[in-house]
């Protein structure tokens, strides 16, 4: 059915909200683009036919195909855009390196975009005299040190003052907030409140 693939593209994308990002749906995307092309060429032919025959009964079908084409195009771009927004989230949460797990779900162009976005952010931050880091202090600071629970075996973690702590699964530590903030965002540590 016309338009079904485009709908499918967005539906499966939206349903996968439990994962950071779903697999790139190249198959549906290709089908949608194909549908656009077919609709376009059929319209083109009908338009030529109209010029010869002035047959107004061609109009409804042309209008329909045009609407289909516009809708498909819109769905396609919405799909691509929404994925980029997810990538952006990943950049802010997990830092500039994408792990293999996520990489598998992406297409080459998305990996490029991700790296490019990372570079844009860095360039922006480097425009300040000391390269002011806007990726830290994501939440209003309440205290200098926070209690954290380690969720996986991370290994040795060195602090700014030279001390190092062994981050083992289920161990609990009292660390400077600024230094372990990124580990919390990556899901390696968990901030214990109360």
């Amino acid at each position, binding site marked *: 059915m016309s338009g079904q693939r485009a709908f499918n593209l967005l539906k499966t994308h939206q349903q996968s909200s439990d994962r950071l990002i779903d697999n790139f749906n190249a198959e549906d*995307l290709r089908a949608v*683009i194909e549908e*656009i*092309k077919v609709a*376009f*060429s059929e319209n083109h032919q009908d338009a030529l036919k109209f010029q010869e025959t002035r047959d107004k009964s061609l109009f409804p079908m042309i209008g329909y195909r045009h609407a289909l*084409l*516009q809708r498909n*195009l819109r769905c*396609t*771009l919405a799909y*691509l*855009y929404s994925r*980029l927004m997810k990538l*952006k989230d990943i950049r802010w949460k997990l830092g500039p390196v994408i792990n293999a797990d996520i990489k598998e779900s992406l*297409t080459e*162009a*998305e990996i490029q*975009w991700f790296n*490019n*976005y990372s570079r*844009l*952010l860095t*360039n*922006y931050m480097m*425009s*300040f*005299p*000391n390269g*002011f*880091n*806007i990726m*830290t*202090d994501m*939440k*209003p*600071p309440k*205290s*200098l040190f926070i209690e954290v629970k380690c969720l996986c075996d991370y290994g040795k973690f060195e602090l700014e*003052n030279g001390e190092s702590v062994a981050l083992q699964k289920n161990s609990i530590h009292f660390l400077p*907030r*600024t230094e372990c903030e990124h580990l919390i965002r990556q899901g390696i540590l968990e901030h214990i409140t109360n």
Partner: protein
Amino acid sequence: MSDENIENNLNESEINLDEEDEDDELITPQELLEKIEIAWINEKSAPDILEYQGELVDLMMGQIVHMEENLQSIPSNDLRKTVHKMELERIKYIIASYLRCRLQKLEDFTQYMIEEEKKRPLNKKRLSEAELKFAEDYHESIETHFHQLALQHLPPQQDDISKRIIRPNVMGHVFVKVLKPCGTIVNTKDEEVDLSENSIHLLPYQLIAELLNKGDICLI
């Protein structure tokens, strides 16, 4: 280091706010912080981007470096170090949050922001150089991405970029606190609203954008 020096961690000597200004407008660090807080809250509450407070940000970043240097010379078991460090963290958070908030708006409404910025006269620009560069590059990266994965495979002239512009809702309501009396304005229901000093109102952003820009009111 003397006590006095530590206490005045937010260096109390006055800073020159406007270097080109002959009159040498001076500002204390305390006032600087207050101004940044207002700018930050305004930015967070306004739907559109506001004028970039570059001078304030630069001065504050200078202060941060200065405070960090001061902190270095206090022994780490000194209670004051903890207190001052906390203060420093808070200031850093405000600046980072302010800048992030602006980037967020640039990312959400990229094309709109760039076009509006181009329309503004030279002395009314709202974005910093780095922000404009970021917005333009970001816009380009998305367009390239669209082109690579979809548009290049399509028949030409099907995609109309002007249909894709996302605009902020400038008629969205904001809470306004009046700093200087600014007469009355007419709201969307044709009622007159008296903007007397310290009064608080809920008004559409568009109506008060000009007053906000002048600094006669602030958002809360």
